[in-house]
C-alpha cells in the first residue's frame, strides 16, 4: 500500500510481485481520461484513514483468495491527463485468484477509500467528480 504525491510508474509498483515464484500476475491501472476538456485531476484524501483502508482491502483480498502478494498504489495531488492515478496488482500460483483479486481491489477501492477527485479544465474552471451508482453496484458484487 502506497500513497504517492509524485508520478507513479505501474511497472515499478508491480515489480515486487513478479519475483514471488507464482505463475500469475494480474494488474489494473487507472489513467486520467481525456474527458471533455479535462486537463488534469486533483486528488484529495483523508490521511490516516486512507492508509488503513487500503491496507484492509489488501488484507481482505489475501483472506479471500490464495495470493502470494498484492499491491495498491494511489496518487494524490494534481495528475495530468494520460498519467496513472492508481495501480493495483495481485500475484498467485494460478490465474483465477490474481484476476479476481485485482477486480475486487479496484472495485472496492472505488467505493471504500477516502479519495475525492476534482476535474480541472483547460479553461481554468474546476468541478468535483460525482460518485457513480454503477461503482456501488460493482463493489456490492463482492459483498
Amino acid at each position, binding site marked *: 500500500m502506497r500513497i504517492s504525491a509524485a508520478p507513479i510508474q505501474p511497472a515499478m509498483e508491480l515489480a515486487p510481485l513478479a519475483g514471488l515464484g507464482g505463475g500469475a500476475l494480474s494488474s489494473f491501472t487507472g489513467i486520467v481520461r481525456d474527458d471533455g476538456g479535462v486537463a488534469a485531476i486533483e486528488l484529495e484524501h483523508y490521511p490516516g484513514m486512507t492508509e488503513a483502508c487500503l491496507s484492509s482491502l489488501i488484507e481482505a483480498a489475501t483472506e479471500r483468495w490464495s495470493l502470494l502478494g498484492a499491491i495498491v498504489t494511489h496518487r494524490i495531488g494534481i495528475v495530468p491527463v494520460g498519467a496513472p492515478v492508481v495501480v493495483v496488482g495481485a500475484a498467485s500460483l494460478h490465474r483465477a485468484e490474481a484476476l479476481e483479486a485485482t477486480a475486487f481491489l479496484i472495485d472496492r477501492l472505488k467505493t471504500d477509500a477516502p479519495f*475525492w477527485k476534482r476535474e480541472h479544465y483547460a479553461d481554468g474552471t474546476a468541478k468535483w467528480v460525482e460518485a457513480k451508482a454503477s461503482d456501488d453496484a460493482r463493489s456490492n458484487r463482492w459483498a
Partner: protein
Amino acid sequence: MKLLYFASVREGVGLSSEQRDVPEDMRTVGDLVAWLAGQSEEHASVLTQQSRLRFALDQNMVSVDAVLGNAQELAIFPPVTGG
C-alpha cells in the same frame, strides 16, 4: 470532538477541521450533523441534506444512524471518487 471536512463539504463549511464541544444529548452521527448544520450559514449550506453525505467515525465508514459513543473524530464528506 474533532470534526473533519473533505472535498465539497470542506469548501462549503470553509474549514478543513475544527474542534467543538458537543452537547451531551447527541446520540448518533445524524444528531450531531443536524446540530452542526445549525452552527453557521456555511455549515447549513452543505450539512442539511444528510442523504448526500458520508461519514467516518474514528476513521471507519459508518452510516448516519451510527452511535457516537466515545468517538474522538467525525469526518463528513461527499461519496468518495478515488481510483
